[in-house]
């Protein structure tokens, strides 16, 4: 009887502890489940959101998913975007801010066939051939401005590596942590160059939210970012659990490529030996440079203040 009573009491106290309804939040990704989001899935799978009483649903995106606009319009609370999208969005009147940057070094690059003997992005632009790149994107405009007399033919970028595999004169934009690995798994050797090396260095895979929401919900936001950081610490150390889930969500990337990508991307996320509490932190200087670059490219007509573009947690 006593035992039974004990159980009942235990049950009630457990119910009371989790009594406060977990806050339901959505985190909208701007691409399919891949290692660039590994830490988010790790946070979810290992219960780092849950232990902070957050019920976070991670939704995959695709080419052209307007995550920034969805966040700006409060359709989702949190989303993933590139740093340049945040600047453009604010310049157009929204209050979207960056809260956590996964990539300190942006892994956006140009992938080429090694047989072509290129040594840099300049070589790619100054030789004939085809380059698939998102038209009108800040990185495309930046590269065009760097190599104004380029000879390469720019064509739309549709994602994936299908055309790369069949066309020997075809180069394409990529995440150096993703497409080159997929192409190699399909038997094509690749070579890739970082766009960051040409001087355009926006933070990549940035968690965003509306400033208005963040100011009203400081604790919830801090909890979410803490959980994300914990998730990334785990993913950097042990990516297998998250990878197993992501492979099921996105069969286009096989388990071996995922494992390889998780390893390759470490250097883009944090310096070896740097303290993990620095994960995701951003600096004023980097944001200011980005604002100036986008202004020079005429992508924005007014310069948003760098300190309003991000908040470190």
């Amino acid at each position: 009887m006593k035992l039974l009573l004990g159980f009942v009491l235990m049950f009630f106290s457990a119910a009371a502890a989790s009594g406060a309804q977990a806050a339901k939040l959505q985190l909208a990704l701007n691409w399919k489940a891949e290692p660039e989001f590994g830490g988010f899935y790790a946070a979810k799978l290992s219960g780092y959101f849950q232990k902070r009483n957050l019920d976070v649903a991670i939704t995959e995106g695709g080419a052209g998913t307007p995550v920034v606009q969805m966040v700006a319009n409060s359709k989702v609370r949190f989303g993933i975007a590139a740093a340049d999208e945040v600047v453009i969005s604010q310049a157009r009147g929204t209050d979207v801010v960056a809260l956590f940057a996964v990539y300190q070094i942006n892994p956006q690059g140009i992938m080429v066939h090694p047989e072509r003997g290129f040594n840099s992005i300049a070589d790619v632009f100054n030789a004939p051939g085809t380059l698939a790149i998102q038209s009108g994107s800040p990185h495309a405009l930046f590269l065009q401005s760097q190599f104004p007399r380029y000879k390469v033919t720019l064509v739309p970028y549709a994602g994936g590596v299908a055309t790369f595999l069949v066309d020997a004169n075809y180069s394409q934009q990529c995440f150096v942590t993703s497409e080159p690995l997929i192409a190699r798994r399909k038997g094509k050797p690749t070579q890739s160059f970082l766009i960051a090396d040409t001087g355009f260095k926006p933070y990549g895979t940035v968690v965003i939210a509306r400033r208005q929401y963040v100011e009203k919900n400081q604790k919830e936001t801090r909890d979410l970012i803490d959980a994300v950081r914990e998730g990334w610490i785990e993913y950097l150390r042990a990516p297998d659990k998250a990878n197993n889930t992501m492979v099921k969500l996105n069969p286009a990337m096989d388990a071996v490529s995922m494992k390889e990508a998780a390893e390759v991307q470490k250097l883009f996320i944090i310096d070896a030996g740097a303290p993990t509490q620095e994960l995701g932190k951003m600096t004023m200087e980097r944001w200011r440079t980005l604002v100036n670059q986008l202004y020079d490219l005429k992508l924005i007509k007014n310069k948003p203040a760098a300190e309003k573009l991000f908040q470190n947690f």
Partner: protein
Amino acid sequence: MSFKIKIASLLPPLLPLILSMGLVETAVRLGWAPSYLIPAPSEVMRSLIDDRVELAVAAWTTLSSALAGLLLSFTTGTLFAIALSSSDLARRAFYPYAVFFQTVPIISIAPLLVIWFGFGQPTVIASAAIVSVFPIIASTLLGLKSTEPALIDLFTLYSASARQMLYMLKIPFASPQIFSGLRIASGLAVVGAIVGEFIGGGGLGSVVDSARTQQRIDRVFAAVLISALLGAVLVGAVNLISALTLGSWHTSERKAT
């Protein structure tokens, strides 16, 4: 008198346009709707003016691809429909595959078109032709199958050849349906061309794609507006040809007296 009539006939379609534009403009100006979600008509106008050269070049590229695609789908679609109408067996064997063209989600096969036809106009034309061919096949087939039996009997009585029967009876009899298929196809060809341009490059599709990347929805709307205009121009051209060819004899185009 005719001027008055023109104004009166223009008013019904213009009024909703002016009202809705005014409403959106007011909503954006007063801050009820943020301009990054829906652009004020005045912003779209400004984009139309500022980017007029780029938009005009893009519109011309899209129009020429859509026209080429339409021509392709019209020739192949009509020939296909004639072949199908000539035998029940052929129709049973091939018609289901024609339906395939109607249901194929063009955006999902567009990347394949690039691999088959390469970047640029060939892909765009193929995309325009694929999405516009089904209405042509379906309408032409319907038209060819609905010749009045009495007239067929008459032609048979005078021992007309199959060729004579086709050219002098069945095709003229089917022309209203052929034109109505063409009308639907011409709008679709513009849509198909723009989708093809998302992947193949060039034209209004490219403008929309890059404006979307830059969060410039005023420019997206400007390009959409022009594409609607292209569709209207094509449908208008088909109407004109239809009136010129059928006007003298077919009830569908004869003016009420």
